[in-house]
C-alpha cells in the first residue's frame, strides 16, 4: 500500500452490491442527457463500452438464456431511447470510451440528420475476485456517460489518434514489454496527435489524464516537456483509475471547479490493453 501511496493513490471506489452498476449507469446516462442540448428522440445511437467482460456475474448460471440478457438493451429501454440503435463495444481496455467518442463523431459526420446525436456510456466494474491493483495502479469501479451531438455547445472534437501495438494482445505474457513501451509510445502518440491537429503542446491548456499513477504522469510530463501543473491530476488520489471513465469524470469535475474556459484546447490521453495508446483533442 505504501508504494501505491507513493505513486499518488489514496482511495478506491467499489460497487457495494451485485450489479449496482446498472443503476449507476442509468443515473450517469440520465445526467448526460439532461445536460445535453439534444432531446431524447435525436439520439440515433447508444454505444455501451466496457473494457471488462466479466461485469455481469449473474449471467453465469444454468440458464443459457442468461447469456443474452443485455444491459445495453435494458438501458435503452429504461431511458426510452425509442429511435436509437444500441450496441456494446468492447476489448479496447482503457482506450474504449475515447474510441467510442471518435466512432460517434464519424457517424455524425456521415449523417444527414440535422440534430443527430449519440449517447456513449461506459461501465467499468471489476468482478468480486479481482484485486484492485494493476501494474502499480489502483482500480475503481465507475460508470460514465456523454452525448456526442451536432448541436453541442462545447468540447468540440478536434482530432483523435490511436497507436496500436497488437503484438502485446496477450497482456499477462507481455507485461514487462508493455511497461517498457508505455512511455515512448505515450510521448509519441500525444505529440503526433497534437501535431496532426495543427497545434503545438504549448497550445494545450490542459492534459486530461487517465488516472494512472501520479509518478507516471510526472515522468510523461518531463518527456513531453510540459509542466506537471498542466496535467489535471486532482482525481488520481481521490478516485484512482477506472479503466475507461476517467476522462469524463475528470472533465465534469474540472467544469464544476471552473478550471475550463471557452476555447481551451484539451488533450485527453489514455493507454488501453490490447494494446493501444489514444489521444483525443477537444476544444472547450
Amino acid at each position, binding site marked *: 500500500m505504501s*508504494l501505491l501511496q*507513493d*505513486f499518488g493513490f489514496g482511495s478506491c471506489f467499489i460497487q457495494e452490491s451485485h450489479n449496482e452498476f446498472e443503476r449507476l449507469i442509468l443515473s450517469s446516462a440520465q445526467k448526460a442527457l439532461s445536460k445535453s442540448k439534444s432531446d431524447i428522440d435525436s439520439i440515433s445511437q447508444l454505444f455501451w463500452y466496457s473494457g471488462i467482460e466479466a461485469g455481469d456475474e449473474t449471467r453465469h448460471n444454468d440458464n443459457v438464456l442468461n447469456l443474452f440478457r443485455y444491459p445495453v438493451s435494458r438501458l435503452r429501454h429504461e431511458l426510452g431511447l425509442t429511435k436509437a440503435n444500441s450496441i456494446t463495444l468492447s476489448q479496447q481496455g482503457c482506450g474504449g470510451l475515447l474510441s467510442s467518442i471518435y466512432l460517434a463523431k464519424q457517424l455524425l459526420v456521415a449523417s444527414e440528420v440535422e440534430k443527430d446525436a449519440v449517447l456513449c456510456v461506459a461501465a467499468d466494474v471489476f468482478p468480486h475476485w479481482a484485486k484492485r491493483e494493476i501494474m*502499480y495502479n489502483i482500480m475503481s469501479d465507475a460508470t460514465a456517460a456523454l452525448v456526442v451531438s451536432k448541436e453541442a455547445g462545447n468540447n468540440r472534437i478536434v482530432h483523435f489518434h490511436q497507436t496500436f*501495438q497488437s*503484438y502485446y494482445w496477450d497482456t499477462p505474457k507481455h507485461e*514487462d*514489454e508493455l*511497461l*517498457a*513501451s*508505455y*512511455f*515512448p*509510445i505515450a*510521448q*509519441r502518440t500525444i505529440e503526433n496527435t497534437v501535431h496532426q491537429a495543427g497545434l503545438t503542446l504549448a497550445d494545450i491548456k490542459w492534459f486530461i489524464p487517465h488516472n494512472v*499513477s501520479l*509518478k*507516471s504522469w*510526472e*515522468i510523461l510530463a*518531463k*518527456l513531453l516537456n510540459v509542466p506537471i501543473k498542466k496535467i489535471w491530476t486532482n482525481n488520481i488520489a481521490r478516485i484512482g483509475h477506472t479503466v475507461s471513465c476517467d476522462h469524463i469524470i475528470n472533465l465534469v469535475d474540472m467544469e464544476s471547479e471552473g478550471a475550463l474556459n471557452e476555447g481551451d484546447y484539451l488533450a485527453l490521453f489514455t493507454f488501453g490493453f490490447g494494446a493501444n495508446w489514444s489521444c483525443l483533442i477537444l476544444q472547450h
Partner: protein
Amino acid sequence: MIGQELVPILLRKTQANIYLLVHEKGLSYSNELALKQLFRMPSDKNFLSRLEVVRGDVTKQNLGIPLPLYKKLIGVTTHIIHCAASTRFDLALDEARLINVNGTRNTIEFAKNCKALSQFGFVSTAYVSGKRKGLIKETDLEHDAGFVNTYEQSKYEAEMLLQNYADKIPISIYRLSTVLGNSKSGRIGHLTAPHQAIRMMYLGLASMLPGTPDYSVDLISSDYTANTIFQLYWNNFLPKTYHITHGEGSLSLEAMIDKSYESMARVDPEWVIKNYPKPSIVSEEAFDLFVGAAVAANNPILKSVATTLNHFTRQLLYPKSFERRNLKLSLPSYETNLPSIHDYYEKIVKCCIQAKNNKL
C-alpha cells in the same frame, strides 16, 4: 576483451614469452585450452612454447601467485601490460576499488620488483574524465567534476596512483572509449553495458535513454584497438597517455538507436513484427524519475533494465570529445585505418542478440 585480442597479436608478431595472469574464472584453462578457447588460435608448437597461464589474483598480495613462481616471474619479466579490471559499471565503489585500484597497486608492486622491466602498459578508460564536458586532452587527469559510475572513478584513482610511480617505472597509459567488439567477426569478449543496451532494445525493454539525440557515442573495435595498443607498446613505446577513441564519424545517440533497430531487423526478420518502439531520448531529470519509479516498484525486470541503463547511459549526459595528439604523433595512420562503425555494427548486434540469458 582487449586481452583476448592482444595476446594473439603478441604471439604472432613477437617472439616474446607470455605469462598470462588469469583469475579464478580461468582456473580450468591449460595453456593449450587458453590458446584454443580464449584466443581461438591453433595449437601451434611455437605458440604453446611461449604461452604460460599463471593462476593469480590482482587483488591479492604478490598477485596471488605462489612465491616460487612469483620469484621466477620477477626475474624474467621485461614487459607488463596491465589490463586486468572489472568493467562492470554497477559495482559498489569498494568492490570496484578492490579490483581496479588495489589490483593496479599490486601490479605496480610486482613491477617494482622486476629487475629487467623496461616498460609498463596500463589499459584505462577515456572516461576517467567522468562528468567533465568538452575537449579532454590526453595530458588531463585530475578534476573534480565527479563520475557517473564506480568503474570510471576506480580507473581514475588507478591512474592517479600510477602518477606516483612515473619517475620509477616507464608507464604508458591507453585510455579507450567504449570497446564494442571485433570489427571482422563481431565477437564480443563479454557483454558489457552497450551490449546490454542493445539487448534491451531487442527484447523490447528499453524505455528511455538519457542524453540528447546528437550526443556522440564513441565506440571502438576490440581488434583495431588491440593492434593500436600493440604498436604503441611494442613498436613505439613512450611513457605517455593516449586516447584510443573513434572521434569524428562516431554515431550520434539517435543514429545508434536507429542503426540498432535496422540491424536487428536484418539479423532477425521475425523480430520486426513485434514492432517494439525505439526508446525515448530524455533529460536527466526524466530519466532519474523513471529509474526511481522502477526501483521503487521493485519489478525485477524493469529494475534491472533501469539500473543497467542508468550506469551505462548516464555518461551520455556529459558530451565530450577526446584529443588524440599523442596518438597521432606516434601513429599518424591511426585515423586512416580506423574501421568505420557503420561497417561492423551489425555484426556486433548479431552477436548481442544471439547471447542466451545474457551470456555469450
